[in-house]
């Protein structure tokens, strides 16, 4: 059951006042503009035991995504497609407010929104991941571990997932005598497009990108918009406030433009296509 609660991330009163005053003056506490994303860096192949991996630092938020390739049955209704599953855990290392245990509703939402961006954009060509049609397909597990949380885990986790997929080495498997055999060779993951999510929050009447924890502590509503090369592919409005239709349309346009910038940087960091 979903339960409303005051934010457990308490921004001290004074600090919050400062933030709201800064916002009223068109600024953010860390000096960024409302449409400015924090500096970020991506390192790939950080986990050698994984078939692909990436560590993303977006400001002080840090996420590692690791890919494991297995084989299994296809999903029902998707008999001729490989399976791709994105999961996430916000590790208790990440903040004083995380309890260890099964994923809570916020973490479930995090994983599902990231999953949706990858799935709906058709980033990975799942048609290429079939070994025996209807029976045996590649199963791609993308697991994300959030090591440190300082806001906007949606985008940090999404970039880690996308970067791990772009840099993954897919083991080439073959059927021999009814058994799956690993040939020992690899090929790149079959990639069709690169989905990029952009998250904004509304505080009062101001919409700003890439919030830090203390901004999230004061937000009224949140929106995560994912674009691929082709256009919009996923969106999630979150939190207990609301947006006007115009605010959403404006945020969508911003997400599309910023998405192109980020996409270029992700390609560069992951050396994708080079």
């Amino acid at each position, binding site marked *: 059951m*979903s339960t409303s609660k005051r934010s457990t991330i308490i921004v001290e009163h004074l600090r919050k006042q400062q933030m709201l005053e800064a916002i009223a003056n068109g600024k953010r506490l860390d000096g960024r503009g409302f449409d400015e994303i924090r500096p970020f860096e991506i390192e790939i192949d950080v986990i050698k035991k994984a078939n692909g991996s990436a560590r993303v630092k977006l400001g002080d938020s840090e996420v590692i995504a690791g890919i494991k390739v297995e084989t299994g049955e296809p999903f029902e209704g998707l008999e001729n497609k490989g399976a791709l599953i994105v999961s996430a855990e916000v590790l208790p290392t990440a903040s004083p407010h995380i309890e260890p245990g099964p994923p809570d509703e916020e973490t479930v939402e995090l994983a599902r929104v990231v999953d949706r961006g990858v799935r709906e954009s058709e980033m990975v060509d799942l048609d290429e991941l079939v070994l025996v049609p209807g029976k045996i397909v590649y199963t791609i597990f993308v697991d994300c571990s959030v090591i440190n949380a300082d806001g906007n885990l949606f985008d940090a986790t999404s970039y880690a997932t996308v970067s791990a997929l772009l840099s993954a080495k897919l083991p080439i498997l073959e059927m021999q005598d009814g058994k799956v055999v690993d040939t020992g060779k690899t090929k790149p993951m079959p990639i069709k497009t690169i989905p990029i999510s952009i998250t904004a929050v509304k505080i009062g009447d101001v919409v700003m990108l890439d919030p830090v924890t203390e901004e999230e502590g004061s937000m009224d509503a949140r929106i995560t918009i994912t674009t691929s090369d082709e256009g919009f592919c996923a969106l999630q409005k979150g939190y207990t*406030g609301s947006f006007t239709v115009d605010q959403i349309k404006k945020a969508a346009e911003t997400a599309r433009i910023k998405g192109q910038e980020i996409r270029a940087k992700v390609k560069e960091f992951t050396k994708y296509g080079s």
Partner: protein
Amino acid sequence: MTQTRNLIDENGKRTDGRTIDEMRPVKITVGTVKNADGSAFVEFGKNKIVAAVYGPREVHPKHLAQPDRCVLRCRYHMSPFSTDTRKNPAPSRREVEISKVMRESLEPALMLEDYPRAAIDVFVEVLQSDGGSRCAGITAAAVALADAGINMRDIVSACAAGKVDDKIVLDINDTEDKEGGADMPVAYMPRLNQVTLMQLDGNLSPDQFNECLDKAIEGCKAVAEIQKAALMQKYFGNETEVKEEQ
């Protein structure tokens, strides 16, 4: 989503015979659950959904109570027989997420500060599912909250739009959801002109995005009229069944 067959025929008719701007039949009955403080039964296409509200009432355990406002709790759940293949009764990750976005879509409409230290529980049970069950669930929950007499700033009305055969259509059904190009569920407060739920699955160009959002909002407004009529009927009564078949 990859589309494999035509879902709109040469006459502009969809798989269930509707035009692209036509909503499925919607029927709302208020007060169907005897024990609840407020309730509604919604049929939206083939969706059959019960919403029941209990509260405002004491919070258990007590430390979850908030000194200056009411706690809102929400569960979206599907009966095992509601889906094409039997659904495991344990809550899926999908149900956990929908419970959360449903709660967040209702909360902006509620004057929770009017009920400090209390809780309001909203239970939405999908007895039969069709495309758009989360929208139908929000629609039912908002009526049940009104029926429970909870102070509200506005009604919350929900409807999806989507893309089928590269056309933007209103209120997509199960087949269109599975085979079509995009699904955009939206919840909306019509008087305050605020979007309280919005999601997107699928691919839309920038123009399609705006068209789809506008069409969903129109759907929400139509749903709001049906909600209003259902509540009116319960509280002021009339003989005609509140039924919308566009």
